[in-house]
């Protein structure tokens, strides 16, 4: 962590407003570009389709953001989501099959519990052993992948009750349920990170671990809380994927892992920790979705769309650097 002298200005309103401004501008720019270039981009069907697609990647990115702010990383987010989904699917289908809505609620509760437990475990190891989170979560990622594949023998579970599928395909006042879940999670996380003592402590840990320790904050407790939170958010993503795909298997959404890191850095999270906000991340995710859907509508190759995501990150970084250096 080389951020001992990291600038403090990011905590002030000015820098935050700037960051949100940049991301909003980019969103508007990419949106207008594809509205002009991509046929059918502004149609209600496409807007709804983007709103349905965003949440799974979005929730996983939120799960990635929290550790990144603390100067760590949670590489286990996608497999945590799978394990949580598998837990819920198995419980709803086997043990709670006849319990109807209560069964679904209990199944979701258990899935979220398992996801949180996976995060808790990573947190405990990071806090107690003091190993770098990349190593710990990489270990956890491979462990969860292997465990899941062992338990399911590489197969999947599918065929959830209709009530569960509603979570993936239903709408409430015109907004797709997955989007609502995402917005609520993002709102909750933004509040937690900005306005609670623990949230502030997470920023401090990422900024300067030693100083945080000396200021009397229980760093271990904060680390455990933040990885548990990350696990919980990943589990919510797992629920959304389960509801949307009506099935779950180890490896679903595997390709999102590095994209979540991309999204966090795109939104101005500092790779060395300390800085990162939820709102710019939400805006950045929207830009990524706009680019992906827009390019699909134009009939561009998926590989090209991936390249554009990468290029987008580099451009944003370049644009941002002068502002960071000036202060």
């Amino acid at each position, binding site marked *: 962590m080389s951020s001992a002298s990291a600038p403090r200005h990011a905590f002030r309103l000015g820098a935050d407003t700037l960051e949100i401004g940049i991301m909003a501008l980019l969103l508007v720019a990419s949106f207008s570009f594809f509205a002009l*270039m991509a*046929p*059918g981009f*502004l*149609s*209600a*069907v*496409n807007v*709804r*389709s*983007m709103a*349905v*697609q965003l949440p*799974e990647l979005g929730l996983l990115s939120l799960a990635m953001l929290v550790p990144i702010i603390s100067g760590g990383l949670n590489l286990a987010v996608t497999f945590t989501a799978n394990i949580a989904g598998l837990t819920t699917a198995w419980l709803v289908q086997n043990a709670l099959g006849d319990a109807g809505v209560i069964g679904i609620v209990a199944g979701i509760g258990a899935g979220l519990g398992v996801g949180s437990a996976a995060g808790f475990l990573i947190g405990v190891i990071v806090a107690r052993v003091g190993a770098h989170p990349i190593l710990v979560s990489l270990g956890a990622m491979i462990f969860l992948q292997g465990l899941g594949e062992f338990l399911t023998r590489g197969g*999947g579970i*599918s*065929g959830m009750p209709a009530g569960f*599928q509603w979570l*993936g*395909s239903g709408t409430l006042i015109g907004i797709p349920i997955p989007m609502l879940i995402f917005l609520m999670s993002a709102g909750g996380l933004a509040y937690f990170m900005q306005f609670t003592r623990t949230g502030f402590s997470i920023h401090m840990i990422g900024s300067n671990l030693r100083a945080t320790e000396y200021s009397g904050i229980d760093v271990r407790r904060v680390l455990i809380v933040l990885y548990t939170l990350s696990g919980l958010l990943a589990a919510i993503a797992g629920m959304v*994927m389960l509801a*949307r*795909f*009506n*099935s779950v*298997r180890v*490896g*679903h*959404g*595997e*390709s*999102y892992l590095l994209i979540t890191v991309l999204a966090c850095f795109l939104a101005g999270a500092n790779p060395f920790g300390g800085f990162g906000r939820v709102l710019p991340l939400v805006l950045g995710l929207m830009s990524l979705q706009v680019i*992906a*859907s827009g390019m*699909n*509508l*134009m*009939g561009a*190759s*998926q*590989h090209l769309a*991936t390249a554009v995501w990468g290029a987008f990150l580099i451009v944003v970084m370049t644009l941002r650097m002068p502002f960071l250096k000036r202060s």
Partner: protein
Amino acid sequence: MKRNLYLAATVLAGIVGSAGMAQAQDKPTIAVVAKVGGIPWFNAMEQGIEEMGDELGVDAYMIGPTSADPALQVRAVEDLIARGVNVIGVVPNDREVLEPVLKKARDQGIIVLTHESPDSENIDYDFEMISAQQLGEEHAKLLADTTGCEGSYAVYVGGLNVPAHNAWADAAIEWLDQNCPDMKQAADRFGVAESVDDSRNTTLDLIRAHPDLAGIMSFGSQGTIGAARAVKERGLAGDIQVMGLFSPGQGRRLVHEGVITGGFQWSPLEAGKAFVALGDRLYEGGEITDGDDLPVLGKVRLDGHTLFASKPLELNEETVDELAELGL
């Protein structure tokens, strides 16, 4: 670029009119979602899709996700629904994951086709270039022809619980039992065909243990190559017939050396053409019934909603180079 312009024009008209579906009524837009883009198999399929698209004058293209993660196929289909295409074709990575989004597509009146996925539910039709039965039997016939139904033979599969491989092997063995009663399997089938080394070693053992070994059939990507190497090492090319599935690029030299007798698979190029031809035909209206003679697929057998064509692609000295050029 030209395609984009064309699209921009047609769909812009669509927006002005009644958004989405109501594009140019006469010609459909057909999009096929591959398992993963950028690999030779699906590059060949893309070529087939575009060739047939040009031939029929329809807008047909392939979307190749950047990895085999099923979630990416779902996203691709979501975008295609938003784009308002008329026909969506999919070669599923994971059938179950796609069911909800394919249902959504069908609910919007989009024709949905799959390939290599007979169990898919929310589709109009699935098509197979060749049935498991026929693929096995073609190999069995080749073995019978080249050995004169004499001696013993061995069968390799990718694994003893790989459904497709074992279905092919079952069909081949059954055909031989009925038509070549004198030929016997030297041993139960071996699950070695995904590894060149394992199949080479197994073949060397078999040659030692069974002097009457006359042929080897391999249903798995590497078994034919491994068996051929063993046969070549022992100088038995021509005495032991090696046949089965193999990648043309990998096996072309062994074929020319006469070590690999031949084999059958199906052509991704033809499958690509079939997607477009079938989509166009269904868009024009009309059901498909058992025994219909369709473009590209030829005479088909309809089983449930699966169309079985009879289009084996023979790999032999004449065809292997051309297929290897395709990158297969």
